[in-house]
């Protein structure tokens, strides 16, 4: 059962492109609201946002079908949203409300949603790599023609389970796509200082189809994803995609001085390579969209976020009986 993979960007037309623009804007505004709500102590715990990195989840997930799987990381809101999560349920989860995706039990780092194929964010760096690989094995054995995408950061490159999982994927030719979002830092440490060799070699060494893409260009990401999905769905096995990207703000909410990098470096990425600006320019210059049409998208999203936040804020906290529920499945 060979299914045609997704169409490359040259063929998808303005509607889909505008849609992708809207998704990136949604993520950006969602994350900005998270920061604000966190500062106002409305979001408990810890949270990591993807401001600046929107092109990767959006580019990848638009090459997937709803029933294709993803796994995500501690920096996972964007992946969940790009795979189709509902904003209200996302906020509800971040607030610890019972109406959240995990009934408030998971929080920022554990959002999961079977309906969109989201197997879950994961607070263990590298923790979801074998899980995505296992989902790919399952898809292969059940002959469902699904693909599993495993998002992870550059920090996960040095977790042993990466080697183990990629080796499994390679020898068994599993339909899994490993997407490394290299945002140049793992917490406060520059990736280069702790990561030997060229990143893409980690895939090649295991005989895995490997590609590097500009993770600030959603179309480049999307095209790389399409090829990987095609490869996977035609039974050829795994891919490893390295996405060069950058988080515009701190690692987590408490990371404010960012002494580990210069303001100049930050500005270089933010000014010249913002993925939303970039697609906006393309839409305006190549597809002749009006500024106002794009602005309308943003304000629509902003309104949706207001509504969602309000609804999520009104939702109830889990009752005490929830505590002992779901420790074991029936």
């Amino acid at each position, binding site marked *: 059962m060979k299914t045609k993979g997704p169409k490359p960007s040259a063929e998808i037309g303005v509607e889909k492109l505008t849609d992708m623009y809207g998704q990136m804007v949604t993520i950006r505004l969602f994350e900005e609201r998270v920061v604000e709500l966190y500062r106002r102590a409305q979001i408990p715990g810890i949270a990591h946002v993807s401001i600046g990195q929107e092109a990767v989840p959006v580019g990848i997930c638009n090459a997937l079908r709803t029933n294709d*799987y993803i*796994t995500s990381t501690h920096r996972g809101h964007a992946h969940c949203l790009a795979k189709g999560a509902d904003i209200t349920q996302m906020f509800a989860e971040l607030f610890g409300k019972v109406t*959240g*995706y*995990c*009934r*408030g*039990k*998971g929080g920022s780092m*554990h959002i*999961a*949603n*079977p309906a969109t194929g989201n*197997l*879950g964010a*994961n607070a*263990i760096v590298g*923790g979801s*790599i*074998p*899980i*995505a*690989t*296992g*989902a*790919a*094995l*399952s*898809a292969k*054995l*059940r002959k469902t023609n699904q693909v*599993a995408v495993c998002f992870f950061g550059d920090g996960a490159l040095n977790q*042993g*389970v990466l080697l*183990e*999982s990629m*080796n*499994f994927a390679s*020898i*068994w030719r599993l339909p899994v796509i490993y997407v490394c979002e290299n945002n140049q830092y793992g917490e406060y440490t520059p990736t280069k200082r702790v990561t030997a060799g060229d990143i893409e070699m980690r895939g090649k060494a295991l005989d895995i189809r490997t590609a590097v893409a500009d993770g600030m260009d959603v179309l480049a990401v999307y095209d790389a994803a399409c090829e990987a999905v095609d490869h996977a769905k035609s039974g050829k096995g795994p891919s490893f995609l390295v996405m060069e990207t950058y988080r515009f703000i701190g690692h987590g909410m408490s990371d404010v001085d960012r002494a580990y990098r210069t303001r100049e470096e930050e500005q270089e990425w933010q000014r010249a390579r913002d993925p939303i600006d970039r697609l906006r320019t393309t839409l305006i210059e190549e597809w002749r969209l009006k500024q106002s049409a794009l602005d309308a998208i943003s304000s629509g999203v902003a309104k949706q976020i207001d509504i969602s936040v309000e609804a999520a804020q009104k939702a109830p906290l889990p009752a005490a009986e929830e505590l002992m*529920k*779901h*420790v*074991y*499945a*029936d």
Partner: protein
Amino acid sequence: MSMQTNGREITMSEAINEAIREEMGRDENVVLWGEDVGAAGGVFKVTKGILDRFGPERVFDTPISEAGIVGLAVGAAMTGLRPVVEVMFGDFLTLAMDQLVNQAAKIHYMSGGTFRVPMVVRTTLGAGRRTAAQHSQSLHAWVAHIPGLKVVLPSSPYDAKGLLKTAIRDNNPVVFFEDKISYQRKGPVPDPDQDYTISFGQADVKREGSDLTIIATSSMVHMALTAASKLSEDGIQAEVIDPRTLVPLDSQTLIDSVKKTSRCIVVDQGYQSFGVTAEIAALVAEQAFYALDVPVRRLGAVDVPIPFSPSLEDLTIPTVESIVVLAHEMVAG
């Protein structure tokens, strides 16, 4: 025991093999992987013939990657399969603890009940084979400590088969500990066409008695039964109870027995300190407090890395003798 066994006797190893075959036959989503479990039938030959019967689509030999073996099972279990995977020696669980404990155990809860992780990790425990400190541990206490995991410790072929079938049908991650030393132990098991399962959380009274309760796990049950026979010659009637599953734990049966006998020894092959004997002893000491004539006593492995030399290894694990001596001491006063 609840089933007729027709006099058929098979080994623990065969019982486990049968359980896997029957469940694989019943449900095509049950798949099997691990190091050398396929063509070679496992290093202990427990999975012999299963590859031939079910083919390479459902039975695979893996690389030596314990974290991957368990971790792939998590992802597969979340998406429709029911993997039964092998971690050859319980000591190697150390390599897979993140996937077992931070992932498998917690996903159902963390996802608010939306994902389930129906998988079985078969592994081993037990010393006595002169394989030294890295191949002789019994680490089931660790697993029992983690909410979200179930823990099974069969002591007989009958129990092993019925419990493993239950484990495979369970919708949660289950760790199934097999004592390497009992693989060749035989016992009555119903014919393969008689489908039976044993519910988790039901302790089994392996022998009734009135003077003393011996709560023993896994192959320690046989030590306890032999000790009970000897004690009976001296006029002491020991009741021997096998919890069979540590999680869920049938505390009621244990407590009721101790309330009857007023004395209790807990025997387990894991390191004694911070181990299984502690939990059971603490529970009994609390719940049967007013019935106890003497303190609850514990016999676990001596708190040392298991030594290689037979002359030392034999001193580490509870023995029939150590149970008998302790029982006499307790009954005397």
